[in-house]
């Protein structure tokens, strides 16, 4: 089977889509489902621009085949609305060009849900998965910490 019809639960909605075995989740989200929030960067698992949320965990969608996500719950940046982390990014000036932002937000969003009491070590460990070419790291860290501290 070189192609498959898979069902993804994306942002709370079930979507059926025909994919090649060789298609990455990133490619299918952007090219077939019109969800262009996840960004292609390195396509090699290094930069985190393509990060989405699969079953609650952050996932580099360039490192996952779309067929592997069959039947799974996927959340992309389009699925977040007025979450605390989005507001915190605005309030803390946590983006410049914005290319890395969806990936960073999805990673931060998972961290807030999985480890609401994350300590500095864990925060650093999770944030190291994403690269910001504009080097807005300090602001991104402040944005994340502002949400975690409020909890």
């Amino acid at each position, binding site marked *: 089977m070189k192609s498959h019809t898979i069902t993804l639960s994306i942002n709370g909605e079930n979507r059926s889509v025909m994919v090649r075995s*060789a298609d990455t989740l990133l490619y299918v989200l952007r090219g077939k489902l019109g969800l262009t929030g996840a960004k292609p960067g390195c396509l*090699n*698992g290094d930069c*985190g621009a393509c990060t989405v949320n699969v079953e609650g965990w952050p996932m580099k969608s360039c*490192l996952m085949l779309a067929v592997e996500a069959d039947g799974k719950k996927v959340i992309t940046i389009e699925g977040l609305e007025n979450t605390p982390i989005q507001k915190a990014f605005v309030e803390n000036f946590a983006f410049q060009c914005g290319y890395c932002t969806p990936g960073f937000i999805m990673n931060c969003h998972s961290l807030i849900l999985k480890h609401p009491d994350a300590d500095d070590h864990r925060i650093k*460990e*999770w944030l190291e998965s994403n690269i910001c070419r504009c080097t807005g790291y300090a602001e991104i860290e402040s944005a994340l910490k502002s949400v975690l501290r409020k909890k």
Partner: protein
Amino acid sequence: MLPFDFDYYKPTSLKEAVDLYQYLDQHGKQPMFFSGGTELITLGRIDLAYTEAVIDIKGISECNVMQISADHLLLGSTLSLTKIEEANLFPLLTKTASEVADHTARGKITLGGNICAQIFYREAVLPFLLADSQVLIVGPDGKKMVPIHELFLEKLQLKKGEFLIQLATETRFISAPFYSFKRRQQWETGYPLITVAALKIGQEVRVAISGLCPFPFRSKELEASLNKRDLPVSSRIDEGLSKLPKPILDDVEGSANYRLFVLRNLLSDMLTALDRI
């Protein structure tokens, strides 16, 4: 997206996976076992890996086991490194695995995939080499439990169609004092310049290393020198360094001499930390 097409199969039993491999191999499909799949996805994209049939083993329950059973810890090959870290059943493994790639990627990279990887660092194998673990494999001849030292010589020596199901580790090793440190050329994520993992069993230290040679290893000769506790630390290390396997990596990450310099310091830190215990 990969530039070539392949069939994708997701068997739910060991037998189904083994049979599929044989069938696909006979039909010239160059089948590949796929666990986290990050190697096929990243190397395939740049034409360094190829297959016409992927056998995803994540649906096989034996490969997803994570439990302590009698006096052994059983870890399935398809567990993601993140899952293993979150459960923290084997602290040396938690520490060593937590330095591989980055946190998000570790949610995809699996234990078996890292140990069987073409990319030769295979850092997650170090704790199992130190703990004399057993590996459970399956293939056309059925299931086999083998001491890791018999099967892991630079890499897991699997025959065509065989794959890793689980690793079994005696619980007395998982709670032993340990040391694990990864030194990179720069930054805080990425491949190692040198990774040293060590366990202390009784009064003896055991040491395994990745990033020094183009394969991870544990060396009994190095350990014998490091355990000469009547000698000063520097002499123990000098003697140990003369017994390392070859070749020492000499590449853009670091020259052979620089790697040996870094290793000397790591061994000294390790002995200082573990001699005290």
